[in-house]
C-alpha cells in the first residue's frame, strides 16, 4: 500500500509547487517527506499495538478474576476477542482493523469508535484550529516586536508574561476562567458547544457557537502563544546582527522597514518548523480544555475513555490525534520548502 500512494501524491504536490520545472529534487524532497510521515504513522500503529494489546495483559484473565467464570466461558470469550490466535495473527487482525478504521465498539457509548470520532472530529478541529491561528499570529507578532529591541520595557513585559503563562497548567487556567467569567460574572456559557435552546436563524446559531468558544479558545491561546513568542524573539535577535541588515541600515532604510521587510521574513524561516512542532502541545491542551468546558470533541472523548476505562475508544483517539500531528508536520515541511528558496534548490 505504501508503495503506490506516495508517488501520486508527490506528483500532485510537485505540479502545484513548481508548475514549469519538473525537477527531480522537488520530487525527491516530496518523496522523502511523505515517506518519513508514513514511517511515523507505521510507528504510531506499532506503538498502539504494543500499548493496547500487549502491555495491558490478558483482559479475559482480568475479567475472570473479578467475576468467576467457567473454563468454557473463558475459552469462548477468548475466541470472541481473537485472543486464542497466535500473536502475529492478532497483529494482522489489528492492522486490518486500523486500516479499515475499525477500532471496535466503545464500552462507554455502546457505539462504534469510528462513528464517534467522526461525530466529534470537526468540533476539535474548529477549536484547536481557531486557537492555533490566533496563538501563532499573536505569538509571532509579539515575538518580533520584543526581539527587535531586546531589554526594552516592551520586551521585558512580553517575555515576563510569556514565562508566567508558560508555567500555568492548561486545565487550571481553564478552571480559573470558568470560575471568573462563567460562574461569577456570567459573561459566557460554562460549557458545551450550543445552548439548550439555540436560536433559529443561521447567524444566531453561529454567534451561539462563538460565545461557547470564547473561554476555551482564550485558555488554549494563553497557554500556547508563549512558546511562539520565545521562538520568534530568539530568531529575530539572531537576524538583527546579520551583515545584510547592517548594509540595509547603512543605506538609510527606516527602522520599521528594516524590521518588517528584511528581518522578519528571514526570521520566520526557522520558526515555521518549530511552530508546527508545538501543535502537539495544542492537542494536549485540547484534552483538558474540552474536559473542563465539556466541549464535544476528541479531547472530551479521551477523558471519557479514561474514566471508563474504555480502551477501544482511547486507542481510536490516540491514533487519530497522532495522525493529525503527523499530517500537520508534513504540511510544515512543504510550507517550509515554499518559503525557503535554498531548500527548494536542494
Amino acid at each position: 500500500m505504501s508503495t503506490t500512494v506516495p508517488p501520486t501524491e508527490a506528483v500532485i504536490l510537485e505540479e502545484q509547487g513548481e508548475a514549469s520545472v519538473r525537477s527531480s529534487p522537488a520530487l525527491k524532497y516530496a518523496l522523502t517527506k511523505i515517506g518519513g510521515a508514513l514511517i511515523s504513522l507505521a510507528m504510531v500503529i506499532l506503538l498502539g499495538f504494543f500499548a493496547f494489546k500487549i502491555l495491558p495483559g490478558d483482559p479475559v484473565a482480568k475479567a475472570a478474576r473479578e467475576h468467576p467464570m467457567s473454563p468454557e466461558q473463558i475459552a469462548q470469550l477468548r475466541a470472541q476477542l481473537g485472543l486464542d490466535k497466535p500473536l502475529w495473527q492478532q497483529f494482522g487482525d489489528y492492522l486490518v482493523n486500523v486500516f479499515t478504521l475499525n477500532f471496535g465498539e466503545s464500552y462507554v457509548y455502546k457505539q462504534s469508535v469510528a462513528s464517534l470520532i467522526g461525530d466529534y472530529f470537526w468540533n476539535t478541529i474548529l477549536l484547536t484550529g481557531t486557537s492555533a491561528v490566533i496563538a501563532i499570529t499573536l505569538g509571532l507578532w509579539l515575538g518580533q516586536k520584543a526581539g527587535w529591541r531586546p531589554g526594552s520595557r516592551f520586551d521585558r513585559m512580553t517575555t515576563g508574561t510569556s514565562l508566567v503563562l508558560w508555567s500555568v497548567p492548561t486545565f487550571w487556567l481553564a478552571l480559573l476562567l470558568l470560575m471568573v467569567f462563567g460562574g461569577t460574572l456570567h459573561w459566557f456559557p460554562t460549557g458545551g458547544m450550543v445552548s439548550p435552546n439555540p436560536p433559529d436563524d443561521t447567524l444566531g446559531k453561529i454567534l451561539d457557537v462563538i460565545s461557547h468558544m470564547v473561554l476555551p479558545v482564550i485558555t488554549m491561546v494563553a497557554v500556547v502563544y508563549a512558546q511562539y513568542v520565545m521562538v520568534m524573539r530568539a530568531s529575530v535577535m539572531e537576524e538583527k546582527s546579520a551583515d545584510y541588515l547592517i548594509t540595509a541600515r547603512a543605506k538609510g532604510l527606516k527602522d520599521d522597514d528594516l524590521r518588517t521587510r528584511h528581518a522578519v521574513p528571514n526570521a520566520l524561516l526557522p520558526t515555521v518548523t518549530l511552530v508546527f512542532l508545538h501543535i502537539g502541545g495544542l492537542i494536549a491542551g485540547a484534552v483538558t480544555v474540552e474536559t473542563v468546558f465539556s466541549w464535544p470533541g476528541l479531547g472530551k472523548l479521551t477523558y471519557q475513555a479514561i474514566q471508563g476505562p474504555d480502551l477501544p475508544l482511547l486507542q481510536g483517539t490516540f491514533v487519530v490525534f497522532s495522525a493529525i500531528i503527523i499530517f500537520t508536520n508534513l504540511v510544515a515541511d512543504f510550507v517550509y520548502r515554499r518559503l525557503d528558496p535554498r531548500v527548494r534548490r536542494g
Partner: protein
Amino acid sequence: MSGSTATLARSPRSMAWARRGRALAAFWREFSHSRAGMVGLVFLGVIILLALLAPVIAPAWMLDVTKLLDSPRFAPPSLEHPLGTDDQGRELWVRMIWGARVSLLVGFAATAVSMIIGTVVGIAAGHFTGWTGGLLMRIIDFFLVLPSLILAIVLSIVLSRGVWTIVIAIGLTSWAGTARVVRAQTLSVESRDYIERSRVLGAGHWHIIVKHLLPAVLPLVLANTTLTVGSAIIAESTLSFLGLGDATLQSWGSILKNSMDVSAATAGYWWYVLVPGVAIVLVVLAFTLVGRAVETIVNPTLRSR
C-alpha cells in the same frame, strides 16, 4: 580547597578534579549574578524545606478525615484557617505541604528518567554514524512530534495505577527534546581535533563517549533538567487531574482533581481552586527561571546578549 590538593598530588585525576572544582566555582559566581535565577533558587529551597519538614509542621493526623469530624467544611481563608478548608474539613495548607512532597518527588524522578534516556539516546545518535545514528534520529523526531500527554495517558491507563507509573509515563514521553539538544552538541564536539587525536591513539567508542562526549554535554543536560522538572510537575498535575494518579496520595494535581469533583469552580469555593494552582505556577516558574539562568551560562550562543 580543591586547588591545594592538586598541587600536592599531580596525578591526572586530581588535576581533572581541581579543574572541575574551579569550573564549578566560576559557574556559581556567574549564576549568583543572575537575579531571576537566584530568586527562583531561594524560592525552591524554601518549598523543598517545607516539603521535607511536613511531618514536623503538619503531623499526619491533620489529614485523617475521621479525626476532623467537627472541623468546618469549605471554610474560606481566615486567621483560623489560613488557606481555607476542603470538602472534608481538612486544612488546605496541610494538604498543600504534603502535596509538595509527591509533586516534587514525581517531578524530580520523572526528570531523572527523562534525562537518562535523553542523554544516552542523544549521544548515541550523534556518535554513531550511518544506519544506527539515522534510525535513532528518526526515533527522536518521532517522539518529539508525538503528543506526549496522550501517550502518557495511554501508558498510565494500561499499566497499573500508582505514583511510579506516572513517573515512568512522564519520563518515557518527555526525553526527546533533551536528546535533540544532546545530539547537536555531540555532533559539534565530534568534529573537534582532540576527539580525532583520541581516536587515532586507539580509543574505543566507550572511552570517547565517557571521557570526552559525556563531560561536554552534561552542562546542557543540567540546564535542560531544571526546565524539564517544571514541565514534569505540570504533567503530573494534569494526569492526576484526569484521574490517572494515585487517589490515596496527596499531590497538588489530586487536590485540584478533588476541587473539580465538588465543582469548586462554579460553586464559589475559589480558594480550593486558586491555592493549588498558584503553587504549581510559582514552583514551575521558579524552575524555569533557574533553568534559563543556567542555560545562559552553559550555552555559549546565548551569552553576551
